């Protein structure tokens, strides 16, 4: 056993400082953000709109929830947004799936019941598996969600949060409602990934029954395709504690 411990010690501290300090560049890759419009050039939007494969570009801006970060619009006048500020910005959490970048985020009903710990159950309703892996990856030593009291559970009966990944297919709807009903209250639903928000690249898919909020009440939406792990962690943290603060624990 001692060799295992030697191994872990030899590899040193891997865990992110988030949410007590802003994430570094590798932890919050640029793909976390949808591109945005350079301020004086709103008129470039109609030029960029036809190249967008998801129809995320509208006359007022880019719909965060629909964008899959494919970067095609970057050669048509839109610019990548800077490094993600998960501490302060609206990016990790949208109140509605179609939120534009300037809309303030909020959590539907931050529950006092979640103060100490949060048990999360992941449900796949039609994902490509990348969102699943990013979410479950939060337990690895780089993110170590357990240190914040966020645990993944194997049963909806022990869960506070239902984490929904993928585009909701009709075949999965009964299981989705049953799983939600099996959870004890107070409970919250967090949808992650463009598929669960607006269908992502598969928007308009005849097998899908969007929006998700028709089937379960959704508290928070995390955009991205897939969202970087820290965006998911940030969302769970906010559901649990409100916005992250810059002060230490």
């Amino acid at each position, binding site marked *: 056993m001692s060799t295992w411990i030697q191994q872990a010690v030899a590899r040193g501290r891997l865990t992110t400082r988030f949410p007590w300090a802003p994430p570094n560049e590798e932890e919050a890759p640029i793909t976390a953000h949808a591109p945005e419009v350079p301020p004086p050039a709103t008129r470039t939007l109609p030029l960029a709109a036809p190249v967008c494969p998801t129809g995320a570009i509208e006359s007022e801006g880019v719909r965060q929830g629909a964008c899959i970060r494919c970067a095609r619009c970057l050669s048509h006048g839109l610019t990548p947004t800077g490094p993600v500020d998960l501490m302060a910005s609206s990016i990790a959490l949208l109140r509605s799936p179609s939120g534009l970048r300037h809309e303030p985020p909020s959590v539907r009903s931050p529950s006092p019941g979640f103060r100490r710990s949060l048990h999360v159950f992941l449900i796949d309703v039609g*994902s490509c598996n990348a969102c699943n892996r990013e979410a479950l990856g939060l337990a690895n030593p780089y993110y170590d969600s357990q240190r914040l009291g966020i645990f993944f559970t194997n049963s909806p009966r022990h869960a506070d949060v239902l984490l929904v990944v993928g585009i909701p297919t009709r075949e999965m709807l009964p299981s989705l409602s049953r799983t939600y009903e099996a959870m004890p209250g107070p409970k919250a639903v967090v949808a992650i990934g463009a598929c669960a928000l607006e269908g992502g690249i598969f928007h308009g898919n005849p097998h899908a029954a969007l929006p998700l909020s028709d089937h379960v009440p959704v508290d928070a939406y995390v955009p991205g395709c897939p969202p970087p792990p820290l965006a998911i962690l940030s969302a769970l943290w906010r559901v649990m504690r409100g916005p992250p603060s810059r002060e230490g624990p």
Partner: protein
Amino acid sequence: MTRSSWVETSLSEVPKTSHDLSLSYLSPDARLAILTDYTEHRTRVLRGEPLGLDPARFPNQPWLAPAARGLRRCPPDEDVRGYGIFTFPYGPVTGGVPEAVRFDVRTYGERILELTPVTGFKRRGVLAGIAGLPLPDAALRVERMVGNLSAAHVTAFLTAAESARGLPVPERELWTRALALELQRIYNHLHAVARVAESAAQSVGQAQVHALSEEVLRLAGWAFGHRWLFGALLPGGPDRRLEPSDRRTIGTRIARISADFQTLWDLLSHTRIFVDRIQGTSPIPRREAIRWGAVGPTLRASSVGWDDRVHAPIPPYTDLFVAVPQGIDGDALDRIAVRVGEIQSSTLAIEQILDRWPAASGEIPPEPCVEAHRGIARVEGPNGDLIYDVTMQGDRVAGASCRSASEANLPLLALGSRQSVFTDFSFAWESFGFVIAEVDR
């Protein structure tokens, strides 16, 4: 550098290596022959019949595993009825399997008499939906069909589409695909080992291996701009010149991850509780693996040394040496050991790819097409042989179908779980490395 010099210098330490060069490469005609069988096999498997391939003649015969939708049955040993025997559905929402799939389990107490995987819950109709789209738009959907195997699916899809169009391909794009494919193989194999360790309650071990798989994702994000390689291989995408310093960085980081993993594996494979749980679990005898048309690490664990990168290679694998580790018993331990060996062999493949990265982007003729406007490609993905059949009309996709590795192997889960106890199910499941997103696509 020639093949033989690679054998002598770098591969002496790879465990369980067998590089069977006696198998002949498949010609395009053989591929067409395969396709005819393929339809017949699909029907047979739907009826619950094995392919009936003759192991004595294998693998000198072209062969192909079945693809089927809906129920994947493996007939029970005997029709057991009686007091205490019942069938219960497990899934499609379970804590143990993070994807949407159901298993109908017929059981007597703990023992599994029959297990039937039922799929179709997360079908999104992706391949049907790409008909009529221009190639780059279609590829954008194919890569998001199976996120953790995106490089394999996009490579197979594009290779088939290019062969259908008959247009030459920029050489550097081919090398970029191979680099992405090997990175993703290492990531997926690390993930499989970590999940099995997790099931065996090896908490320190699984955390350390999971950390390494995160490092591969970060490396992919750094090298390709996306952790899951989305957008990295799209036609008309960025030409990756990869400066020598970039190549050094990728090479050193992957070599370090691979070396760290070997240290962890040495510890894991000497942990009795871990080995006891997976040794002898869900064994697939060689004969059954061939009869049912298993592919990838599952097939190789049952001591059949077939690997598309060696036996049906697309460029640049025609110029690379790839070691093919094999197992003996075909149990969960062998499937994991094959993956462990492949992490090393992919590290060596990446070393060769970076060494010989083309300085100028020349053009390479496409694979010959099987029919006018119709191309077929086989690519060895992390879970095994992946086949795409694509028809093009000008620069638009007219139709595409695919036979994924997970659907070829799914009947083997039913076979391997028979007579095992339900607590072993998670070891069996994780050792096969199934990805339901490529079955329900």
